[in-house]
């Protein structure tokens, strides 16, 4: 204990608790001790999340005056956002792009998650690490890789030209909405796999055997047992891709061109070149509300659908 005295010396509340007073209450109340231990993290997260969002919402009711703000609360920013067709078009386009990307990613990733959950028996961990590894690498670089591939003189165009298949570079590849969808689908794929894999892995295999014993073929078994039971994973994957991609601005900025600009680029511009922070805040709030409405609607619809099946 010689080198431990320093540590012990700092302890105010030994485990052999006093039998009365505050100490006893503290030691006997499990929730209290738990929350005390949790409090540093909880407080920092609470300050770090709630206060910035409160001030974001507040600022969305202000007005920009040159380099200063008029702090009188008005709905002007929201009126502008609603009246101007540009904002509405951009929000709708962002929802469409990230909606498409979400559907594509979930559809393409589901079989992969299914394969690893049901058909990989040895080295499963390696497969899982391989599937999720790209997700931890630089998002910027993954997006950038697609710029190299789809570019005017990029991998695809110069490759096809070298093979003599095309004379002129295909211009539709870069700077289009499809370029944004492809890139986002690739960048978020790893995010989609994990929740679906987890819910597929959790399925009790005896249920599948029971379904087979009761006469279901592979397709019926999949539709009636596997798919409904993996629905929570599909829902999680959908939300986990849809929510952040709506506000993405790196991919549209690098690959979208004028037709592929999304609401995120406009918000970023308000805090940069345009220098209208309150308008940017209002757009951010509007986007958050739109995304939340979409997400909640989606959850309600899937829940209803699930009840309908069951």
């Amino acid at each position: 204990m010689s080198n431990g005295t320093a540590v012990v010396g700092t302890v105010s509340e030994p485990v052999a608790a006093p039998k009365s007073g505050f100490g006893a209450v503290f030691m006997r109340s499990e929730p209290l001790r738990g929350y005390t231990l949790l409090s540093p993290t909880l407080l920092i997260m609470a300050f770090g999340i709630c206060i910035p969002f409160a001030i974001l919402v507040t600022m969305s009711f202000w007005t920009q005056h040159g380099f200063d703000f008029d702090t009188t609360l008005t709905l002007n920013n929201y009126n502008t956002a609603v009246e101007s067709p540009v904002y509405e078009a951009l929000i709708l386009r962002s929802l469409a792009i990230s909606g498409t990307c979400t559907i594509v990613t979930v559809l393409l990733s589901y079989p992969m998650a299914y394969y690893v959950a049901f058909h990989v028996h040895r080295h499963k961990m390696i497969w899982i690490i391989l599937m999720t590894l790209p997700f931890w690498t630089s998002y910027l670089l993954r997006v950038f890789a697609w710029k190299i591939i789809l570019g005017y003189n990029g991998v695809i165009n110069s490759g096809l030209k070298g093979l003599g298949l095309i004379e002129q570079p295909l211009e539709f590849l870069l700077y289009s909405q499809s370029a944004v969808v492809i890139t986002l689908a690739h960048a978020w794929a790893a995010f989609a796999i994990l929740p679906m894999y987890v819910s597929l892995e959790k399925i009790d295999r005896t249920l599948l055997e029971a379904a087979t014993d009761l006469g279901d073929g592979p397709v019926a078994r999949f539709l009636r047992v596997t798919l409904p039971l993996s629905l929570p994973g599909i829902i999680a994957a959908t939300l986990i891709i849809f929510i952040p991609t709506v506000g993405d601005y790196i991919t549209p900025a690098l690959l979208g061109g004028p037709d592929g600009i999304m609401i995120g680029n406009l918000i970023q511009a308000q805090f940069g070149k345009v220098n209208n922070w309150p308008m940017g805040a209002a757009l951010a709030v509007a986007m958050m509300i739109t995304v939340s409405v979409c997400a909640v609607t989606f959850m309600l619809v899937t829940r209803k659908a699930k009840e309908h099946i069951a």
Partner: protein
Amino acid sequence: MSEVSYIQQRNRPLHYYALIYLAFLYIPVLFLPLFSLNDSIYVAFPLKSFTLKWYEQMFANEPMFAALMNSVRVGVATSILATFLGIFAAKAVTRYRMPGKTPVVSFIMLPLVIPGIIFGVALLILLSRMGIKLTLLTVTLGHVLVCVPFAMATLIPRFEGFDKSIEEASADLGENMWWTFWRVTFPMVFPGIVASLLLCFTISFDEFIMAFFLSGTDPTLPLFMWGQLRFPAKLPGVLALGTLILAVSFFVVFFSQWIRTRGMQSFTPGGD
């Protein structure tokens, strides 16, 4: 064995699909190293001759080195702070019965689903209203908020993975709370802590959006790269830099996942 065989039977098409899927996941990224070794400032086929000159130029690039050091500093500070907060939270969540635990944990996990741009501008507004100058410290603050959920998600399975009674035995034998943590809990969750440190470092090191809004005059490495993208002549240099970053990230993440899952198996045999 025939009862299970129909579930476990091989599915060739699915197997090929999985391989194609993995290829789709990795091939785009592999073009970065390929063209970083190509002796041409144009990123296009056919490949010219092999060269290492982009790497040589990169190592002579001082602003890049400054950005690299900035990123390392932010990454180290972020990973230590986030993991520290994660340990407290993971221990509290796994060891105590608390009313309202689920909503509280969901709240801490919120940064996972908040779009980066919204979180970024919200923090930017707060900092500017408080009159705090944007520096690497503000970037670190943003990164800690982003990383705490990841640290917690990495650490909680570790705390759940070993028997609570070992800690109780230590307490019964007269060790106090802190000493028990240091001599019993800490060694048991150590692989989780290493994994959390490494993951948080990588996330911070690669993070762009928060850094974009919260950094002052000192750029982090992703911001430096973003700035370079405007100059076509600098493209091969960016490719060389990107290749190095990818290599380091891949190695660090693979190592962290390996250490995390390996340690788990030795504690809970048969579990995953």
